[in-house]
């Protein structure tokens, strides 16, 4: 098969898989998988921008998606006015004080000569501001968390359309990436991987524990939607007419209709990001990034500022992941900090990029689709497989019961093996990166 035909063929094969699920299981499930495939594909694009274009290892995908998810809550949830009255001023004041403390640190850093004095000065400023901020912050947090704790107990958000949060989520993730990049990008690749893993654990720890911000592990549910609710559709006259004209069950059709609306929105976002990424990859900027990736020393000799180019690409990729994170929370309609696990949110995305083809945007998208599809379908496939190999055993055989019970965990093993096999035997992935000098 020629290189040209390969991409359409693989995407058509993927579509066929989703259609088979539609026929064998249900169309609703097929669309649910498609929607998460689309979000995964955007996350994989983000990682591909960092790893594929520039060779940066970001093991903090989980943190950037969680930040995006938080923005979905903060933008869309209506403000809780009682909580604002109780502690809003205190929180605002402590944010202001934090900014002042940071400014003071920056000024001290600039004013004092490098050496012991500077370190001691910074330590004193940090210690004083820590206790001052805590004295304002703690009472405010208590006041907020005790107002109506059972149903709200947090500040709420801005009550704006949730779709705005997709952009804000990207900006917030970019902001965190800027701080992270400033600290770690001068150093070699392992430190970036470890540091991003660390920041993502901390982001999730904050989201689990700062109840005033997002109710912590009590979760925020019932977020507004950018698409209609099923219940409202089922009562709308035009929808009743449409479903009776099509001759389908109205409940199932409403669920499919809603999922299709999400799919259209997600496809639009994916196409915009893909278009921009492809433009960037083919521009002189993209060529420069690949040159830096392939040979840092000679690019540096050509006068390219490696650290600031790396910072740029790190921020861009993280922003894309943040957008996808906000979209995911929008799709779920709720924000559950405990659902953020590194295997699912960081390392699975990496499997997508490596399997799809690092450096190729279409590859990353395909990887997102294929890996998410098998991640979901591994469970029924695993149970079916275990049923087959244990069919000779008695129904109450403990080994058989254990195997069927644990079949779902098979998907982790399968993902690991797929990653290792692709990395070893086909390191350029399903859709390899295009190199202009390759043919």
């Amino acid at each position, binding site marked *: 098969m020629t290189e040209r035909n390969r991409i359409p063929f693989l995407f058509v094969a993927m579509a066929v898989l989703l259609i088979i699920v539609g026929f064998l299981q249900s169309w609703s499930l097929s669309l649910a998988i498609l929607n998460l495939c689309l979000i995964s594909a955007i996350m994989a694009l983000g990682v591909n921008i960092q790893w594929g274009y520039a060779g940066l290892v970001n093991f903090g995908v989980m943190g950037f998606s969680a930040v995006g998810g938080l923005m979905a809550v903060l933008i869309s949830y209506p403000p809780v006015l009682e909580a604002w009255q109780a502690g809003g001023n205190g929180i605002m004041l402590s944010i202001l004080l934090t900014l002042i403390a940071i400014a003071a640190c920056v000024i001290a850093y600039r004013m004092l000569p490098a050496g012991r004095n500077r370190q001691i000065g910074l330590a004193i400023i940090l210690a004083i501001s820590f206790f001052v901020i805590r004295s304002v912050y703690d009472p405010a947090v208590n006041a907020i968390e005790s107002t109506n704790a059972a149903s709200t107990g947090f500040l709420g958000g801005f009550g704006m359309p949730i779709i705005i949060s997709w952009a804000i989520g990207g900006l917030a993730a970019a902001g965190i990436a800027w701080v992270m990049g400033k600290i770690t990008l001068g150093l070699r690749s392992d430190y970036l991987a470890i540091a991003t893993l*660390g920041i993502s654990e901390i982001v999730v720890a904050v989201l689990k524990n700062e109840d005033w911000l997002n109710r912590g592990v009590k979760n925020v549910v019932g977020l507004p939607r950018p698409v209609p609710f099923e219940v409202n559709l089922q009562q709308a006259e035009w929808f009743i007419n449409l479903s009776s004209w099509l001759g389908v069950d109205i409940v199932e059709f409403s669920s499919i209709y809603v999922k299709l609306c999400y799919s259209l929105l997600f496809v639009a976002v994916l196409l915009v990001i893909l278009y921009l990424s492809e433009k960037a990859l083919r521009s002189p900027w993209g060529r420069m990034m690949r040159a830096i990736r392939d040979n840092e020393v000679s690019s540096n000799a050509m006068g390219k500022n490696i650290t600031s180019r790396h910072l740029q690409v790190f921020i861009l990729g993280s922003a894309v992941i943040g957008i996808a994170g906000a979209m995911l929370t929008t799709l779920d309609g709720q924000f559950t900090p405990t659902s953020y696990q590194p295997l699912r949110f960081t390392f699975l995305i990496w499997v997508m990029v490596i399997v799809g083809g690092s450096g190729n945007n279409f590859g990353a998208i395909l990887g997102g689709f294929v890996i998410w599809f098998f991640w979901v379908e591994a469970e029924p496939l695993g149970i079916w497989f275990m049923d087959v190999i244990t069919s000779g055993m008695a129904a109450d055989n403990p080994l058989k019961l254990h195997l069927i019970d644990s079949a779902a965990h098979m998907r982790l093993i399968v993902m690991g093996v797929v990653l290792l096999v692709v990395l070893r035997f086909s390191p350029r992935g399903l859709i390899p990166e295009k190199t202009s000098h390759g043919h």
Partner: protein
Amino acid sequence: MESYANAFVVLLNFLIIPGLAYGSQLALGALGVTIIYSVLRFSNFAHGEAMSFGAMFTILTTWLFQSWGWHLGPLPTAIIALPVGCLVTVIFLLGTDKLVYQFYRKQKAAPVIYMIASVGVVFVMNGIIRFIIGPRDQSFADGARFIFTARDFKEWFGLSESLALRSTTVITIVTAIIVVAIVFWFLNKTRTGKSMRAYSDNEDLALLSGIDPDKVVRVAWIITAILATVAGTLYGLDKSYKPFTYLQLLLPIFAAAIVGGVGNPVGAIVGGLVIAFSEIAVTFAYTKVIAYTLPEFMHVDGLAQLLSTDYKFAVSFVILVVVLLIKPTGIMGGKTI
């Protein structure tokens, strides 16, 4: 005077002794990471899973021994099960080296590729662990729970504060000291250990002087597997075995290795203790200590905690970042990654 003694007992009970135990676990973990880094030159993200894997086989063997009626009296049965756990982990890690890492070594691949391959190993090991033992908590500690209880301590000293010494804490610290001593003896005194250090310092020169690289790598994996199994089992004995916690332990372990100086075994120990004590000291509630030592007007009502316990990972991360900014080679001086 008595109030100072009371304050000291509080510190000993909730800060110093737990810090030593946690520090030993981190130090063993960091030592494993640092050995793989100095010989194979990559950050092994599968080390947390190796700890979990080793602990799991130790637990399975412990249950087997318990079902045979084997007990060690006051000591936990897990101690005699440990060699079996180590053996299985050694075989497994040598297998992953053969199947996964050896290929990249021949290719002289970039460290980043090893790192991504280790993520694949994380998936496989995590899946195997969940497949065999399931995602739930397991308890396997038996034997005496306390060396002495809080009541004993009160009878002996008559202070108002009391101290209980759990046997798992002592076992953790003692085992860690023994294992570290053996590893240092091995690295400094034996021929194989010396050739490992030579290989880590300068690969080309070591190859020229006839050191067998395959043997060095093999020995590095064997030591790492043993260290990981011991660390994982001790952590499980001291707290409880949860398959998921080990992936989270990865951050403090890396922090310990880097803070001490990557590739420097002494640094791994120092780093482990620094990280453990800072995590506990920053999240410790000082209310009682303040009440015992400071004058009345400075007493506080709340917990007097600098940070809530949930942020202990943030502490290791901040220390990591500060060390990266000020002294990237670590406290004891190691390589820069």
